[in-house]
Each structure stands twice: as structure tokens, then as C-alpha cells.
């Protein structure tokens, strides 16, 4: 069996690698090249050097959206993970109908971001109309609106990951701790959480990168209003790319910067949480 795998691995691997190459590596390299070009369609690019990057950093909206995105990422990271963990803890206890609850919590994740954005916009504005304001008029409302929307969507997903993690903790460790007289809190912080670190790594990674990459929900819920104050990085890149004649290169340059930021933050976070993982 092993011999066969050794012999025929290219047949299994090459199609995937080819897809990865065509669908990811080639466009990625082309994208980096295009960020140094002036172009309308990707076929007629003209090399212009780092001009696009200079333009990108001159744009105050880009820096503003970076701040907004960072703030959003921090708030949603904490909120989503804490809530998802608590829900997961609750739903691994012996309560009636826990499978139904799990399904219900997970379901928002199955709806597309654009639809969610418009639905929540209707909900929020239906409430705000009573207070004589609207989501698109107030950046604070816009911010918390986004947090609520994304939380509602992602808590269920993270909950599933945490539930899987909780169920993988061997019962005998918990039992031993209990016999040794550890309290509930002690067990949570000394046994459960350290054993959950792999799940926490995955979930924090997902929430951080999801927050940075957030686009559909942002576009549909606030569209960056008022005056770009709720515009996140991805939306800023999109509106730069399509907003004016000849700005495609600038949008592309912003996208490369965006990529570097997301990768850097993702790697840093992986390193930080990986260090805390324990071997079972």
C-alpha cells in the first residue's frame, strides 16, 4: 500500500496542485506584478514602479479604514470567542434539546453576508427610526451594528469548533482533578482551557482574519457611510479599484499591503497561541 502511494503520488497530488497553481499562485503573482502597473484590464498593464504604493499611503481614507478595521478586529475577537466558548460550555452540559440549540446557533452561518447585511440593516433601521436616526448616519451605531451582525453570524461556527475541542478532553483528567478537590473554576482554568488551546488557536485565527477580510457584511450593512467612517480595508480597496479612472493600480497596491498585514497578524497570532498549547 505504502509503496503504491510512493509510486503514484503525482496522480493524486498533481490535480490539486494544478488547481492551486492556476487558481491561486498565478493570480497572486500576477496581482503583485499589477500593483506596480497602470492598467484598465489585466491584459494591457504598463509598469510604473512604486507610484501606486505612494498614492495608496497618501489616501487618508485607507489609513482611517485600517484603524477602524483594527478596532473592529479586537472587539469582535474578544466578543465572539468569549461568547462562543460560553455557549459551547453550556451546550456540552447535560441539558435538554442541546442538539436543537447547537443547530439554531450554527444556522446564521449558512446565510450569505450580503443577505445578512441587508436583513440586519432593516432590523436596525426599524429600531433607529424610533430614535430619529439611522445606521448610515452615525459611525458608532455602524460599528456596533457590524459587531452584532458578525457576532451573530460567527459565534455559532466558533461554538462548533469549541464543542469539538471540549469533547476531546479526556474525562479521566477532569475526574482526577475533581477527586483531588479542584473547584469548578479551577478545573475550567487549569484543565479545560489549557487542553482547549488548539481550538482556541483555530478560532482566534479565524476570527482575526475574518474580521480583517470582512467585505460583504460591511458593504451591505453600512456601505462605509457616513463619509467613509465605517469603511473597512476590503471595502476601501474595492471602492478605490472601481471608483475612478486609472486607479486600478492603486487599488491593487492597497490589496498587496492588505495581504501583508493579514499574513503578518495571522502568523503573529498563531505563534502566540501555539506556544500555549499542551500535549495531552
Amino acid at each position, binding site marked *: 500500500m505504502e509503496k503504491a502511494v510512493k509510486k503514484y503520488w503525482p496522480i493524486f497530488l*498533481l490535480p490539486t496542485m494544478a488547481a492551486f497553481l492556476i487558481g491561486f499562485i498565478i493570480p497572486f503573482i500576477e496581482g503583485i506584478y499589477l500593483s506596480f502597473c497602470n492598467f*484598465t484590464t489585466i491584459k494591457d498593464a504598463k509598469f510604473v514602479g512604486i507610484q501606486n504604493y505612494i498614492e495608496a499611503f497618501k489616501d487618508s481614507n485607507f489609513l482611517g479604514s485600517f484603524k477602524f478595521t483594527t478596532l473592529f478586529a479586537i472587539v469582535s475577537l474578544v466578543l465572539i470567542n468569549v461568547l462562543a466558548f460560553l455557549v459551547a460550555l453550556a451546550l456540552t452540559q447535560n441539558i435538554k434539546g442541546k442538539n436543537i440549540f447547537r443547530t439554531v446557533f450554527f444556522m446564521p452561518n449558512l446565510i450569505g453576508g450580503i443577505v445578512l447585511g441587508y436583513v440586519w440593516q432593516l432590523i436596525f433601521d426599524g429600531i433607529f427610526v424610533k430614535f*430619529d436616526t439611522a445606521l*448610515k*448616519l452615525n459611525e458608532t451605531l455602524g460599528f456596533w451594528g457590524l459587531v452584532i451582525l458578525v457576532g451573530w453570524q460567527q459565534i455559532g461556527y466558533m461554538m462548533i469548533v469549541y464543542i469539538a475541542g471540549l469533547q476531546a478532553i479526556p474525562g479521566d483528567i477532569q475526574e482526577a482533578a475533581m477527586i483531588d478537590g479542584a473547584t469548578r473554576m479551577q478545573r475550567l482554568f487549569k484543565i479545560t482551557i489549557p487542553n482547549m488551546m488548539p481550538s482556541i488557536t483555530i478560532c482566534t485565527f479565524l476570527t482575526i482574519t475574518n474580521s480583517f477580510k470582512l467585505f460583504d457584511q460591511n458593504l451591505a450593512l453600512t456601505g462605509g457611510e*457616513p463619509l467613509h467612517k465605517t469603511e473597512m480595508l476590503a471595502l476601501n480597496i474595492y471602492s478605490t479599484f472601481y471608483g475612478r479612472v486609472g*486607479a486600478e493600480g492603486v487599488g491593487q497596491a492597497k490589496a498587496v499591503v492588505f495581504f501583508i498585514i493579514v499574513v503578518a497578524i495571522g502568523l503573529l497570532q498563531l505563534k502566540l497561541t501555539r506556544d500555549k498549547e499542551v500535549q495531552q
Partner: protein
Amino acid sequence: MKKKLAVLGLAATMMMSLFAGCGGKGTSGGKDASADKGSVYYLNFKPEADAQWQELAKIYEEETGVKVTVVTAASGQYETTLKSEMGKSECPTLFQVNGPVGLASWKDYCADLSDTEVYKQLTSEDFALKDGDKVAGIGYVIESYGIICNKKLLAEAGYSMDDIKNFADLKKVAEDITARRDELGFDAFTSAGMDGSSDWRYKTHLANLPVYYEYQADGINNTKAIKGTYLDNYRQIWDLYINNSTTDPKQLSVKTGDDAVAEFVAGKAVFYQNGTWAYSDISSVGDENLGMLPIYIGVDGEENQGLCTGTENYWCVNAKASEADIKATEDFMAWLATDDTALKAICGSQGAMPSGADGMGFVTPFKKNLESDNLLVNIASQYVADGKTPVSWNFTTMPSETWKNEVGSALTVYASDQTDANWDLVKKAFVEGWATESQAAGN
């Protein structure tokens, strides 16, 4: 080892043939039988006319055997769609730009149309979009906009359209209706929705008026730096719209284009700013009740102002398509401008399509243009016949989409809190934004 290499080699050749397959298709057009005839791929801008274009394409294909593909971009997504379609190997042969600014980004793709039949069919040179001496685009539809009004409701309020000859009259009527709104049961204006489906009526169409008057005053038809001479007038009309409407100005950010149509059709408001293209949406109000007023903004001599008339729809032929395809596209355009069936479909309204469906109801700038039964179009022609000066569409010179969006957001913010400080945001977006955007766009 040898075997491994062989497997690798096999996989590599498979992939090569895959790539070659893609590439080959792109260059040859894929079909040998119709290669000599070429084919047409039209990227349509107007979603409301999609069904009609599909039908015309089928008819043309039956008559001539030339394949015509029509794809329609979603509302507001034309540039986005065009950019991605143009990047493909089977790219549009017929597309459209919206005027000088749109042309700037696509001029390398526009074939010279000066020798084509469709260019010769134009009634006036003004309807061609030129890049130097090159005829880059052919205007194919002329449209007008203004303030559509419900004459019946206006009469109920005790006025007629003849009472409104300038901004002061309009203001008086609108504010009087607002003062008596409970008694009358309707408002002056439909909601000036700032949702993406409606905000173009204000950030683009209404903003055309201050731009137009400034160009007139300065004797120019394009500029890199707008002065904003008529911004106070812009504010006047915007104030009038938002403070005399069905909707609290704070709620405008969520109102859509459909909301405004619904309000107008249901008789909840007298005035509705939109153009001839909106006729089919509102025709249920009844032809006898519909009228159109010019958008008065309080400029001296505006009694003589007509509706805003022009085009932002120019057909361009993709210069990078194959020669056969370009020829086929030019023939298709000539057919559209001259063939009776095609013109009937384009100009006619009810039952004008061969299948019995409604036509597109356009006014074309072609010599063979047919009388329209679109009431709003006829009202627009009447204004011209009465000697009123049509306002040209200068919004095609607005420097970029970003500029429009910035003005739109500023208008929304101002509507929610009508202070001078917030109006300064509009001014800033309008004047400074114009300078930065035209510099960034490099035109």
C-alpha cells in the same frame, strides 16, 4: 525513478494541453463555421431593456446567421462588469461608455467609427463622442429629466403647472402643500432617497444644474477645477426637496428608488425628480395626470430653462476584437439604426416588439427615429418646440465615481442635520473633491 518521471511527464503534458485548449479557443473564436462572419457580443447597460435586447439579438441571428450574444450588467455594476469581461478572451465587441470621463479609461479599446453606417445615420455630430478626430462612440438614446408632477394632485392643492415658472414659484407651491399636508393628504416631493438605488438622482442628476450654470457663466464645457459658483442654489433646491417630502430628512439614507416610485404612484406626493426612462414605472398615474417641470434652482433667467436633455449612453466597438467581429458588430449597429423592426423595438413602447412585448421606448438620434408614445418624451420635445433652452448633461464631465459618491455621502449627512458646517462638507466634496479627483484621474 524512470517511471516517476514518466508519470510526471504525462501529467505535465495533460496540463499543457489543458492550457493550449484555453488559449486556442480565445484566438480563433472557437467556431470555424462562422469565423468568416464574426460574432457580436453586446454588454448592455440598461437592465430595464434586457428582454428587448435578447429578443432583437435572436431576430438578427435568424435574419443574418451572425451570432449575437447580449449580456446585461446589473444596475450600477456596468464598469465593474465591463472591466472583468474585457479581461476575458471572449470579450464584448460592443460596449458603452458614459461620456468623456468614461472614454478616458476605455479609449484604447474604442475603434474609430467614422466610416460606419451608424455614424452616418446620426442626425447631428453632437451625438458622437469624439477623441480628437476619432469617432469613439455613438450616442444611441437621448433622454430628458426634470421634475415629474402629478397634475391632478397639484390641482387639488389649488395650483396648475402654469403657476410654476421659477424657483420662487416652486418653493411657494411646495411649502404651501407642506403647510396643508394634513388637510390635503399628500406631500410636495417624493422621498429623496439616498440609498444606492436612488442617490444618483441627486449626486449626479441634480448636481448637473450647478455644474451646467457654472459652465455657462464661464463659457466652458469641461474643467479641472470647479468653482462651485452655484452651490448656494444647489443647497436651496436640496433643502426644498428634503424638507417638503413624505419622509423625515433623517430617514433619507434608507429610502430607495422603489420607495419614491411607490409614493408617486400611490398619490402620496406631487413631485418626483426623474427622467423619461421612468415612464413605464409611473404610467399607471394616467397620461392626463402627468406633467414635467424643469428643475429650477433660482438662477436669473431660468424662466426660459427647459428639461435636462442629453445622453450618457455611447456605443463603442472594441478595437481589440478580431476584424471579423468588428465588422459584424458594425453591421449589427447599422441594422439597429436602419431596420424597421429594430427601430420599432427601440423606439416603440406598448406592443412594439415582434413578440408583442413592450418596446424600449427610447428616443434615438438616428435619422430614421420613430415618433415615441412615451408621454414624458413628448413633453420634453414640447419644451424644445416652445423655445425653452434644454440643459445639457454636463454630469458626464464629473471627474469620477468617487466624486459622485463623496458628494452623495455629504448630502446624506447634511440632510440629517442641516447646519452650515455640514453644508461645508458638501462644498468640500464638490469643489476640492473635483480638483483632487480630476488630478487623480489624470484627465
